[in-house]
């Protein structure tokens, strides 16, 4: 495994097909081991859904991938950058890896337009005019164009999450991380957000998603992973994953949520 990635370092054609490489990633919170050696490779353009019970380490794992959560052992490589890198490298990774949070985390003191336009101006050197054009295009794409001058508190949860997706897209990231994007939404608003994500999945952007939407994962994922107790237990195509679940813990989980 290690030999493999070292070789691909010298073969750009092969190496560049892997967007995310994680090897034996470990993370402790005090004495509690939140990640017990997670190994995962995600290919460019791939959509990987991670399911599993709460507290299993899904969020923690996603947060290590953009440097929000430092890890204690193992290695993570995003595109060409090894984590934990220098301060500059971490910024660069974060600009290439968009993240959508469970609780939206829009900036409440900015209009929807400014929420989306901010990061490209600060991090990519766009002018406000350029960034606003980009924001308008993205907000139209997620169906929020008519709310563009409102503040986040004036929007529904589903609308806020769509703005958050547009905000992440504004940096034109190579990877999008979704941390249970529909878990804090009212049931009737889940579909509008999933619809946006479904459309994104077909655009060829690399997506890694922690979710409880089993049906959605089955539909859009190229591969599905099951994470429990800080371990990635099972990783397979949706068909194999759901039709022939081999692990007893996965079986028991699926029987509860399906």
């Amino acid at each position, binding site marked *: 495994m290690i030999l493999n990635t070292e070789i691909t370092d010298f073969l750009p054609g092969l190496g560049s097909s892997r967007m995310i490489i994680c090897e034996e990633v470990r993370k402790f919170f005090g004495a509690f081991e939140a990640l017990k050696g997670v190994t995962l490779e995600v290919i460019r353009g791939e959509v990987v859904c991670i399911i599993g019970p709460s507290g299993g380490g899904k969020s923690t794992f996603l947060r290590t991938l953009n440097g929000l959560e430092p890890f204690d052992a193992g290695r993570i490589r995003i595109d060409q950058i090894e984590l934990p890198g220098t301060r500059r490298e971490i910024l660069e990774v974060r600009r290439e*890896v968009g993240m959508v949070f469970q609780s939206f*985390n829009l*900036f409440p003191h900015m209009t929807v337009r400014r929420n989306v336009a901010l990061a490209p101006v600060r*991090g990519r050197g766009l002018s406000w005019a350029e960034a606003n054009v980009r924001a308008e295009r993205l907000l139209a794409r997620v169906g929020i164009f008519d709310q563009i001058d409102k503040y986040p508190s004036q929007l529904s949860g589903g609308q806020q999450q769509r703005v958050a997706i547009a*905000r992440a897209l504004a940096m034109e990231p190579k990877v999008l991380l979704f941390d249970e994007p529909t878990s804090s939404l009212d049931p009737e608003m889940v579909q509008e957000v999933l619809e946006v994500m479904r459309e994104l999945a077909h655009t060829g952007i690399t997506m890694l998603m922690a979710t409880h939407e089993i049906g959605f994962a089955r539909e859009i994922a190229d591969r599905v992973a099951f994470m429990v107790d800080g371990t990635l237990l099972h990783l397979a195509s949706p068909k194999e994953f759901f039709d022939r679940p081999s692990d007893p813990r996965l079986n028991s989980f699926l029987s509860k949520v399906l």
Partner: protein
Amino acid sequence: MNFDTSIIWQNLPMLLGGIWLTVVTVFLSLAVAIVIGLLVCAGTLLGKGFVYHLSVSYVALFRALPEPVIIFWLYYCGPLILNSKLSAFESGTIALAIPSGAYLAEIFRAGVQAVPRGQIEAGRALGLSSFWLVCDVVAPQALRMMIPPALGIVTILIKNSALVSAIGVEELFYRATVLGGQTFHYFEFLTVAAVMYVLMILPLSVIVQRQERRLLAKVW
């Protein structure tokens, strides 16, 4: 009981001069207090180390001392340590700023810490540098929460400014008592002084109430 307004008009320049000096004292000590507050707040946010402990001790000490003690101590005992005698005005201004700085430091700290973690994480996840994270995300939200309590400190500062009359700063309250003593018209001069303090503080209270209502309504 008769209220002689003519005696007020006769001494109006003197009273206006007192108001002016009160305003100058308040603004200068507020400026010093803000600088102290920012530095001490930065120190307490460090969370560990010598500067942190120094900052926390500063807040604890000067919140515990009565303002008159600080004012008298700095004016009468300061020269014994500092080797140079400050004027009553300088000494009084600094003495007012010292405890206000401690209160402001706590208000600034509370404001910064009240910004939800998710906000900072969202900014980080977007690749904002620390500088822009503070300017765009933390500061605007923290400032908004700081305004009502900070204006509360300003109103207290205005009231406490009357205390420096005790060391001979000729501000509004000092002049009102002196004029009262000279003319035996305490009633008129103290009433005018009282009205002036209220007029200075009332607009601030209105702003505080309006801002607090907006905070409760969560409207930006």
